[in-house]
């Protein structure tokens, strides 16, 4: 039997929404328009020192807000039993640019120690650990578009195996002009105006965005009553029954062809006709946070009964599900592929008794 963990806390921030509660309505309202790229105002987490926040990279502030929200939801503030796993793709590009600017303009002796210490890759983990008082251990992993799902899988494993009693896990990405320009140079960046929907025509590149999403996971037996569970699947053979919903990480980028193959592989096993939803037409491409936004939608569908519209798909995908809303789902399969073709699957399910 597939092992699973309970999701006991969720926190997120994106350009369009900074709470799960408002997500479904905001998603429906965008109707697949090109997503905004940056968060206008990153809220300060509870009890955060303004001076410290000013010094932090944008990426770290996004991660801290999402992780703090998730930890407060789950009641794991100041816990020596809670580990942290953070997934990142590009890291703190803007602060590292600032560090280089001082260095290039005034010489290496004038490079900023604040930009360096807050710009290192694991700065978000350090900030979450210090602010939330989590000391059990942890790590930062770096990967591409599927990094978030890998992070959540590692968190689940660490709880199942008893490395941590709880694990706060998530991903974060900041919008950086440097990174956007780099992707524009290789033709992966979508230059076009809305609408932005995967599989509705030829791939046009992704719409870069920013945000962060964190979860707190706990042992299944530590949770009573209604709960949402997460199982990292090592293969589709572990899929027991049909999922009601498939959430794809397609974004118009190079991973789409692998997402398409993965969807086809799932559908080939299904007796029923699951709904297929996309998170990135709302959240944009946020790399390490991307699959976690899909996971947040899955959690919202199962925990809150939230309803998300499904858009019509390109017939080329071989599955012409009608555009309609998803209601009453019991299980959601999240698919997350990277640009190099590595695909992770995560199954979310719910328990409403006990």
């Amino acid at each position, binding site marked *: 039997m597939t092992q699973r963990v309970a999701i006991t806390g969720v926190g997120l921030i994106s350009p369009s929404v900074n709470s799960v509660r408002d997500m479904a309505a905001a998603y429906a309202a965008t109707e697949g328009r090109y997503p905004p790229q940056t968060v206008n105002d990153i809220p300060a987490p509870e009890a955060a020192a303004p001076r410290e926040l000013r010094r932090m990279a944008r990426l770290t502030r996004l991660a801290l807000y999402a992780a703090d929200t998730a930890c407060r939801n789950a009641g794991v503030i100041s816990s020596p039993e809670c580990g*942290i796993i953070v997934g*990142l*793709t*590009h*890291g703190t*590009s803007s602060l*590292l*640019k600032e*560090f*280089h*600017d001082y*260095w*290039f303009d005034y*010489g*290496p*002796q004038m*490079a*900023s*120690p604040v930009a*360096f*210490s*807050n710009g*290192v*890759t*694991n*700065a978000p*983990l*350090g*900030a979450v*650990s*210090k602010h939330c*008082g*989590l*000391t*059990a*251990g*942890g*790590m*930062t*992993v*770096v*990967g*591409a578009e599927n990094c978030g799902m*890998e992070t959540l899988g590692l968190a689940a*494993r660490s709880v199942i*195996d008893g*490395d941590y009693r709880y694990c706060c896990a998530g991903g974060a990405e900041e919008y950086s002009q*440097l*990174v956007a*320009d*780099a*992707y524009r*140079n*290789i033709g992966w960046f979508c230059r076009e105006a809305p609408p932005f929907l995967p599989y509705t025509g030829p791939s046009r590149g992704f719409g870069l965005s920013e945000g962060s999403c964190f979860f707190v996971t706990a042992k299944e037996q530590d949770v009573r009553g209604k709960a949402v569970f997460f199982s990292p699947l090592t293969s589709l053979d572990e899929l027991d029954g049909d999922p009601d919903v498939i959430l794809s990480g397609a974004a118009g980028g190079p991973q789409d062809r692998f997402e398409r193959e993965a969807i086809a592989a799932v559908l080939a096993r299904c007796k029923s006709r699951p709904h297929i939803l996309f998170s990135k037409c709302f959240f944009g491409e946020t790399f390490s946070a991307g699959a976690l936004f899909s996971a947040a939608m899955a959690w919202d569908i199962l925990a809150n009964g939230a309803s998300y519209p499904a858009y019509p798909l390109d017939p080329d995908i071989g599955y012409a599900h009608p555009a309609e809303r998803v209601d009453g789902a019991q299980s959601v399969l999240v698919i997350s592929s990277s640009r*190099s073709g*590595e695909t992770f699957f995560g199954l979310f399910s719910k328990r409403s008794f006990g």
Partner: protein
Amino acid sequence: MAHEVWITGIGVVSALGAGYEEHAEALRMGRSGLVPHELFGGREPDPCVCGIVPHRCMPHSIEESAGIRADLLLDFALRQALVSAGLGAGIHADIIAGTTLGNMHGATRYYSNVREGRPADPSLVRHFLPCMPLAWAARHNGIAGRRLTVCSACASSNAALGLAFRRISRGQCSRAIAGGFDAMSPFVAAGFNSLRLISAVPCKPFARDRNGLNPGEAAAMLVLESKEAAAERGARPLARLAGYGEALEAYHYTRSDPRGSGTEAALRKALTSAGAGPDAIGAIHLHGTGTEANDRSEYVACRSVFGDRLAFIPACSTKSATGHTFGAAGALNAVLSIISICERIIPATLFSENIDPEFAGLSISTRVRETSVVEMIASSALGFGGEASVVIIARAPEDA
């Protein structure tokens, strides 16, 4: 049931040279690989005292290999580890590596081009991704299996070893290649210099006049196998990876907790996971960067865990031989600990003749010491973000 984790191969390249023999020889001779080097075209803080991989092992200069140096170092260590373990290309294994910044020197060049309005090489986009060197090296060596890049600052490669250890000992995989790498880059030297943590002379870990670290570069990869998997193919272990522990200090982004909270917790967890008590530890290979805060924090933690017995446990830091190799530091320490066990020597903590009296009871070896059998060595690595980790390296079983 926990599976015994055998170390059946190592690949290593650092300022001391390449491979087991060159590192063993350098440790026996008490040789340092630190050299003065111009990283900033002669501007201060040049000349930097650095641990740079010798030309005979890495023919490309730091400038020439800016965007691919990490790839080359990792590839070198990976190939050597496979040969050392008697494995060929095309194997299936988890591959987990720690790094702090990947090919950051390439990213620095990218920033520089963009600022000066020169066309930025599109291929340089890969330098924003620290996971790319591992992806490339795994592909280049035909290793199929799960790939993971860990960026836990200077504790990165201990975290990689720890994750591989847990997966094998729990039967989640039977073989993994784990370790770490980091290439010399002016960025990291400028960064530590901005924090006033760079020493203008060879570093002096635990010395009264210690005043900072020397940047270094290295790659160290270890082939880890379950006892059963190794025995099945007739492989013999160099040593065992017996335990791993980690903790977060939640104290400061860059400074270690003077109470040693993280290292103490990591050390205790590592001992528990090895099923051993403090009495089982025969030597300590400290992170020992030569900075005020790091050395104090490690000492306090060791004092707390080992008590009065600390005075009888030989301890060392090899940062004055290799430089601080950041993401590779934990795995390099692990390799040097294996050599220590196999060659029955305790490496010298070079240039640290004048041990700080603050560290009373810490038995720092300032000269190379021959020793009797050492059963277990505790090897630590601490990183920014308050990350602390300890691996326990144990002597190979007699009957293996």
